């Protein structure tokens, strides 16, 4: 865990995720009436944590590559490609899901919370422990797609 490696991209991504979370809570503010809804939200936030612990236990060998220029150059293209593809694919999937189920994502807020928390925990996990740039691209892509979908496409 090298604290120096926390760069601006990390903070921006985490910030977006927090923003999405706050927005989702506000969006569902009317629906949060009972204790049950609070439990569901807490559960959906906790969901990824045991899985990540399990993954870490299995794959404990430190894969963190030296964050050198060479490593960055080598992975620049595939990572960017992954980012672009994931953003497009996830937005399309979300749109298709809305069309098929005839429901807005806003109606099933738990699902949105689940995607958000799973993605951001995996992102932080990957960033701190493995620093795999390709996985980084995919996870940022999912988060971006979710943010774009929530903020712009389903007004």
């Amino acid at each position, binding site marked *: 865990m090298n604290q120096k490696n926390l760069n601006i991209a990390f903070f921006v991504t985490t910030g977006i995720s927090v923003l999405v979370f706050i927005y989702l809570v506000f969006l569902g503010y009317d629906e949060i009436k009972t*204790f049950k809804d609070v439990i*569901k939200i807490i559960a*959906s936030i906790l969901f990824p944590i045991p899985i990540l612990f399990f993954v870490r236990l299995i794959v404990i060998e430190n894969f963190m590559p030296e964050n050198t220029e060479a490593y960055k150059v080598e992975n620049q293209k595939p990572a960017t490609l992954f980012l672009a593809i994931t953003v497009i694919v996830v937005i399309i999937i979300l749109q298709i899901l809305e069309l098929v189920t005839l429901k807005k994502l806003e109606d099933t807020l*738990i699902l949105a919370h689940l995607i958000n928390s799973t993605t951001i925990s995996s992102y932080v996990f990957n960033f701190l422990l493995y620093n795999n740039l390709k996985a980084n691209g995919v996870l940022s892509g999912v988060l971006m797609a979710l943010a774009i979908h929530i903020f712009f496409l389903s007004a």
Partner: protein
Amino acid sequence: MNIIKNQKNQTNSEKRELLFTFQTIIVAGLLAFTAIAFFFYNHLTVVKGIKVIFAPFLSVVPLLFILSILRDLRKGFIEGNYTQKEMVKFGLLTLAITIGFTGITFLLSKINALEILLAGIIAVLSTVFFLRSKIKDILGMSIVTGIAEGIIIYMIFLF
């Protein structure tokens, strides 16, 4: 800074053990959370107060007995990596236990007396502590993870 340095000096098996301990703490927290949620939401009644006090002992006493007589069942966490076959095997095991525990949590939610719920939850907790102290292995980890995920999935989708 010192803590971070210490972590670097740890061997992989020590790190694994630490993760396993964290996971058991999470499960214990989740179980407490489940008990509180069911208690408030299902308006459980306390039929006989004295039973509530005795309910936990039902599973704690056998646990203590077993812990005192049994030696460690597994050798502990290995230092190197797991093979692909093992990963798939334990991943599937975790999945199966997740599904199983979603069902068990569903059964727990059907209980309508606090003392029985408490007995059930303490029984699960005892199992977890048993795994924690005697089966320090990836097997224990996958079972504990399965229990945690089962409870969470029940809470998200079925509660």
